[in-house]
């Protein structure tokens, strides 16, 4: 998903869940910040690099694709953007162990990890709620792709059709992908950019939905395509329908995090909250535009009556930089960093415990004591402080 949903729509969902304007701003900032918190940025604020929730294109270009490098990439992308749906699912056909590991990382909504993500954020503050909302939202947009470089899972081919409703008729048009990142997506001609085909299994070009470009992130997109893992079965994706489920699931999750609901379960959506605004929300989602930030912003401002500031990545930077060592964890960025490391730690641990080494090793600190990356020591200190 893009900023229009992660920032402005998350604000609207938070407000509808009962948070105040100020609280909603922190939540939506954290949700969008998951797409901005790179190692480069963390270096600039002297933050722990293990808290990175995404990678710049330049970082991806420099990333190693040996085993530790792939595991590092998988830890980031599978934890925050391509949360696996079912870590124990097997493909229908017999396959190698390496293939099965990647197959089990395919993202999808309403999995056990999605529920754990929300429950993990309970009682951890607004920043943790924002991180959880980003993860939940992305499980809808990025479903059927995996957060690990793999051509046999993530590749798409020329069998990719956009479905459009025109004058009451459904039309299907083949999408043309080009590889020039400097050109903008052309909605009229249905030409979209995507990564270059690389038949190397571990090429970063085959990470996530890179082979389909930004297209899966557009809220208006309805399309039919053949994922590489699906054995010639096709998938029909309806983003407006999925995004409305994502939105209502976020409202439900935020109500749980706020304490209005006792338990959080998957496959539940707070449709009642959006009843008065259903047509308006659907209108925004179905609007054939690459960026609907303005529309979501107007909707959010209409809901709350307050002005929503545009996203500023450096909004809380000074607060973090000027805080002393003991006080950094109490700043917005500090709490975000803790929430991100907690989320990454949880997902890596679940993947490891399922017998899958795609995200590397994970150690149960409770059983074996602290080992490994020292950045996570602050997580332990925070828990002990609690």
């Amino acid at each position, binding site marked *: 998903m893009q900023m229009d949903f992660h920032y402005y729509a998350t604000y609207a969902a938070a407000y509808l869940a009962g948070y105040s304007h100020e609280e909603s701003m922190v939540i939506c900032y954290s949700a969008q910040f998951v797409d901005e918190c790179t190692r480069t940025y963390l270096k600039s604020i002297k933050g722990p690099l293990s808290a990175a929730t995404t990678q710049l294109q330049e970082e991806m270009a420099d990333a190693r694709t040996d085993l530790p490098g792939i595991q590092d990439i998988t830890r980031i992308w599978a934890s925050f953007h391509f949360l696996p749906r079912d870590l124990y699912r097997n493909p229908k056909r017999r396959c190698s162990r390496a293939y099965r590991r990647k197959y089990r990382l395919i993202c999808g909504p309403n999995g056990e990890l999605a529920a754990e993500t929300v429950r993990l954020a309970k009682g951890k503050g607004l920043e943790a709620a924002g991180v959880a909302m980003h993860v939940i939202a992305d499980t809808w947009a990025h479903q059927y792709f995996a957060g690990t470089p793999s051509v046999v899972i993530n590749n798409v081919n020329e069998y990719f059709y956009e479905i459009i409703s025109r004058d009451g008729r459904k039309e299907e048009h083949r999408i043309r992908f080009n590889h020039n990142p400097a050109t903008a997506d052309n909605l009229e001609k249905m030409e979209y950019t995507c990564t270059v085909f690389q038949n190397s299994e571990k090429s970063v070009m085959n990470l996530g939905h890179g082979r389909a470009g930004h297209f899966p992130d557009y809220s208006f997109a309805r399309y039919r395509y053949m994922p590489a893992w699906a054995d010639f079965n096709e998938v*029909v994706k309806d983003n407006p329908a999925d995004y409305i489920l994502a939105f209502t699931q976020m409202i439900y999750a935020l109500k749980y995090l706020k304490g209005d609901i006792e338990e959080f379960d998957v496959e539940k959506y707070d*449709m009642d909250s959006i009843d008065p605004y259903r047509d308006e929300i659907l209108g925004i989602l179905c609007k054939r535009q690459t960026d609907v930030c303005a529309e979501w912003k107007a909707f959010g401002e209409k809901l709350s009556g307050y002005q929503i500031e545009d996203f500023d990545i450096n909004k809380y930077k000074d607060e973090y930089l000027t805080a002393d060592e003991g006080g950094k964890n109490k700043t917005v960025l500090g709490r975000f960093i803790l929430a991100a490391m907690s989320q990454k730690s949880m997902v890596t641990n679940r993947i490891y415990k399922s017998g899958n080494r795609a995200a590397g090793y994970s150690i149960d600190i409770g059983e074996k004591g602290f080992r490994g990356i020292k950045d996570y020591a602050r997580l332990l200190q925070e828990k002990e402080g609690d």
Partner: protein
Amino acid sequence: MTLRKEYKEHDYLINTYGSFAEARNDKFHVDERRYSSILKLTANGTLIMGIWSLIKCFMEMIGDMGSEILADEVPLLIAIFGSAVVIAFFFMIGISFRYLVWRGACREAASGKSTNGYIACAIILLAYGVYAVAYFIYHAVRKEADVQGVLKLIFDVTSFIILCELIASAFRLRKVRKEIAARETGGEL
């Protein structure tokens, strides 16, 4: 993981905007996509084999021509003209057949327009493949085969297998498409 969309909690969307599309994952549509993909892949393989044959022929000609010119056995102009004629001949016979196979197979895979011309070309190339293997076996039995002959055999066998797969996929694809067309008109084959 389901590949079909289950509309439960958002019937409102269906009522307002209509069910927009269903995934076609019955056996026939899946087989159609599978054989279409195999047909296109084997067509590309056939063409690449043809291009490689041409390059190899050209390299051999350059090598032989070079040695003959150096030995002053053949004047330069005659050597160049003769080579051009031979290359053109091989191009016409070799790659043109493979180009026709490639074009016909890709067209059938993409649009469903089936012709038998490219199948006939593929069968001719298959016949040549049989001849090439028999030629190698004959020379191997007489202990006249060399390393180059073995490499050529590997190439010819590979090309043979690709062509067999291409022809088989073409016929399977036609059968599946007939079945789909029959079902869509209400009957069955």
